[in-house]
């Protein structure tokens, strides 16, 4: 279980102005929940994720995961990045087995390679273990990133726009893969995205965040992820309730962005 308690984060710009990236953000995430976060740029969503991961220290409040206050990065909280986080000097296999190999007391080699093969199969990369990662397409590279994260068996998976750099078709396929992995592993997942459709189809819960100060503007509880596990996601995206919420959320984000533009013109 993840508890985020009254988090605030204040940055200082080089001009010594204070920017409130996050203000009094609180929420609780149960084990196995899939949360997606949407918001215009500058709403603090990446800051929030980096604090939960333990890369950043908040100016106020704390994040508590499974009873322990977050004070730094931990293998219990895995992360999948948009791109560029694979180790291109290692083969696919070495990337995926990196976490288990770096453990304080690594398991026997046979067990690690068995585990690696299992996750490569699960993400649909059987037979690619020996390839250098730079020979793979963008979509396949993100599959490696997912397998690498899952092979380390974290309790919580943080995803910072993991599909943001993919083309539209690959992206939809990968959304299906994410739902499948979530369903099969029961992992708790937080995913940041810029795509409203993606946020709606993947998240059981959705936070729409607003900027200046960064805060949770609205929370939704959504049925689509559950349906997506069983049903074709294209069909769900055409449902009237899906379309209705999609338009509502898009409208909300557009008005936020217009407000930002207006403020910039005044300034």
């Amino acid at each position, binding site marked *: 279980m993840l508890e985020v308690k009254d988090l605030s984060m204040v940055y200082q710009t080089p001009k010594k102005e204070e920017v409130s990236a996050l203000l009094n953000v609180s929420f609780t995430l149960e084990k196995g929940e899939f949360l997606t976060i949407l918001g215009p740029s500058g709403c603090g969503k990446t800051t929030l994720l980096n604090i939960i*991961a333990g*890369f950043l220290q908040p100016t106020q409040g704390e994040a508590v995961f499974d009873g322990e206050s977050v004070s*730094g*990065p*931990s*293998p219990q*909280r*895995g*992360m999948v*990045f*948009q*791109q*560029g*986080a*694979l*180790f*291109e*000097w290692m083969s696919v296999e070495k990337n995926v087995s*990196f*976490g*288990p190999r*770096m*453990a*304080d007391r690594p398991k026997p080699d046979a067990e690690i390679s068995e585990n690696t093969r299992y996750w490569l199969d699960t993400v649909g990369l059987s037979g690619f273990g020996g390839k*250098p*990662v*730079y020979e793979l397409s*963008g979509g396949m*590279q993100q599959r490696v990133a997912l397998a*690498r*994260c899952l092979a*380390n068996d*974290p309790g919580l998976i943080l995803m910072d726009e993991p599909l943001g750099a993919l083309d539209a078709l690959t992206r939809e396929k990968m959304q299906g893969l994410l739902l499948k992995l979530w369903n099969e592993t029961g992992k708790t997942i937080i995913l940041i995205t810029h795509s409203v459709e993606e946020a709606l189809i993947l998240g059981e819960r959705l936070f729409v965040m607003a900027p200046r100060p960064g805060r949770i503007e609205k929370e939704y509880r959504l049925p689509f992820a559950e349906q997506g596990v069983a049903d074709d996601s294209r069909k769900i995206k055409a449902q009237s309730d899906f379309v209705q919420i999609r338009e509502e959320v898009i409208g909300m984000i557009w008005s936020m962005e217009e407000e930002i533009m207006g403020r910039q013109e005044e300034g």
Partner: protein
Amino acid sequence: MMKNILRALNAENTENQRKIVSFGDSSLVEAPGGRIWTFASIAFLLLLWILSGTFGWVNPLFWPPIGDVWHQLNVIASEGYRNATLLEHIGISVYRVLMGFLLGCMVGIPLGFALALSKVMNRIFDPIVEFFRPMPPLALIPLVILWLGIGESAKIFLLFLAALWIMALATRSGALSTNIAKVYAAYTLNANKRQILFRIILPNALPEIFTGMRVSMGVCWGTVVAAELVAAESGIGMMIMVASKFLSTDIVVLGVILISLVAYAIDIFMRIMEVRLIPWRGKSS
């Protein structure tokens, strides 16, 4: 390995043959084929050299006929020059370069990582590195002779200095180019600081370290010849210096050609090593 590279190059080449825009496309310049021009240019220069000797276009004192240089090569190769064989002269120069270069790497690479990874180290060493970096090693020859004499240690120390700053800066730049996402990812995958240094930051910096090695190898080679010109009892530079005092231009030219050939061979070796050791170079996503 070589076969794969050649096959990849050839595959690219068939595509290149269909390209309409050629002026300004650098991949076409690098593409294989067209070797005939290389041979033609070398053959032209050699021909010019032969003809100029045959017809006496140039005073042999300024530029000797190719036959004289060839003759000197045979003489020196069989009889040696100034109490040392030709191989010994080449060998001692190469030895000095390698020693200075290796010592420079051994100190410069860790120094580069320190500069990139520790704020305190950066503040301490940055002014020192920045002060010595632009200083040509040759300007230090008088000081080094004063401190260490004209023996081997003086020359190696000079070459060490020549390689040191280049290696430190190349390593720093390579280490600083690490995408922070890779470091973050490694931390969430159990890695500790030591593992992050050796398994993430070091391989990430390797391409730039290798470039630094090639540059410093070139600088060391230039510096050793100059150092031998000033004071030495052996080495190719010394051979050139002594020969010039006796106006034996043929030996001077022979020495210059040998220097270029050895340097070229070393660079080719390093390029092959680079392809083998760092296949991911330039492939970062």
